[in-house]
């Protein structure tokens, strides 16, 4: 199998207006920087983006917000972004906030072919409005759960540390986050990697995402890997 494409532009070339895209990453950690730049360059519009966060004003998905390419965000936390706030308050941008674990598990459900999952997150809150609830016994006590549906995304774009032409991926540290589940959940999944190695160079026991889930892969470049909250201690 050789799923290698030349670069981000080629990887995203069939992404059209008004599609739904999952984007991996948590905060600015593990985000597909190259593909985001290519989407901005391509100027595709009306996107529904499923991503835990919405970047910051001048990085990550924030870049696509600035160019008004995003119609709707489905996220768990969208702070730290003034342009986001402006568009939301002006009604230009639609936002659906869902619990972080629900977001992760709805991706997992899509990747694992489970049409719906049950979670207690959001029971009794406004997140539960309009959703089916169901009680199950947990540790001898009846507990209420929400039924949440698997995501249905046209594309998933993920960022990994290493990958091979089969699409096998290895993530690094907490840059793993949502990337493996989104990789499994896209109808078409695009992976950008810091280092593309030949087939056989990755230990098959250590692969986080098997290549079967990946449709296109390329070695990215010029990763900025910006830090959102630089916290240090004194020597």
């Amino acid at each position: 199998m050789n799923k290698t494409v030349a670069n981000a532009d080629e990887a995203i070339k069939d992404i059209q207006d008004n599609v739904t895209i999952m984007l991996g990453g948590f905060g600015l950690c593990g985000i597909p920087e190259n593909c985001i730049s290519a989407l901005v360059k391509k100027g595709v519009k009306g996107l529904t983006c499923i991503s835990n966060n919405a970047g910051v004003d001048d990085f990550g998905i924030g870049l696509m917000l600035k160019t008004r390419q995003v119609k709707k965000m489905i996220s768990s936390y969208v702070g730290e972004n003034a342009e986001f706030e402006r568009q939301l308050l002006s009604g230009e941008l639609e936002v659906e906030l869902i619990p972080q674990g629900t977001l992760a598990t709805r991706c997992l459900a899509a990747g694992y072919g489970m049409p719906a999952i049950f979670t207690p997150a959001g029971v009794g809150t406004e997140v539960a409005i309009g959703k089916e609830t169901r009680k199950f016994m947990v540790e001898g006590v009846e507990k209420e759960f929400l039924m949440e549906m698997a995501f249905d995304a046209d594309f998933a774009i993920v960022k990994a540390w290493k990958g091979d032409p089969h699409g096998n991926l290895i993530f690094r540290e907490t840059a793993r986050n949502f990337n493996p589940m989104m990789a499994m959940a896209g109808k078409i999944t695009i992976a950008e990697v810091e280092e593309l190695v030949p087939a056989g160079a990755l230990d098959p026991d250590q692969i986080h995402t098997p290549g079967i889930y990946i449709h296109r892969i390329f070695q990215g470049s010029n990763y900025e890997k910006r830090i959102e909250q630089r916290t240090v201690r004194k020597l």
Partner: protein
Amino acid sequence: MLDKVGIAKRIAKEIKDGYYVNLGIGIPTLVANYIPEHMNVVLQSENGLLGMGPFPFEGEEDADLINAGKQTITTLPGSSFFDSAMSFGMIRSRKVDLTILGAMEVADNGDIANWKIPGKMVKGMGGAMDLVASAKNIIVAMQHVNKAGESKLLPKCDLPLTGVRCVKKIVTELAVLDVTPQGFRLLERAPGISVEQIKNATLGRLIIEGEIPEMSID
């Protein structure tokens, strides 16, 4: 009256040897500094890490290594990374022994509100709804009253809820309280604080039985 560090120190006493603990943003993050060194405690960061270590030394920050507050951190021997589905999987299956988080309001039935203020920009619930819906044991670190002097320990939350009937214990600048089926039970007073002051600052049902000891935090 306790300051933030005092609240963190008092909460640290609730942590037991062998616990896996999830610390929220704000005062809860400070708790890590006061866990006794001899204790085996593992901190979970819900973005995908068990075994969170201290902040890195300057120059050793790693953009790939952050906690749920997006702060640069380090690992410890025995740490493990995993994806967000597994992270919330272990939260939902109650493998995390203790969750410590902040709150805007807590009701005397254990309801908690900490994610949304109507009329203000909503940033989102992040992992808070998952954590409070599943945690075996939740301790809330919060101010007893807001800046206007109004109680945040209420008969019923006014703000949109994060979770229902889930808070087990509350540590404020004034007191330590358990949440019981009968309401808040006063367990300890902060140094120099009277039972009367706590009564006046608590709007929800408050149970005061017997002598209420002053807490020790060191």
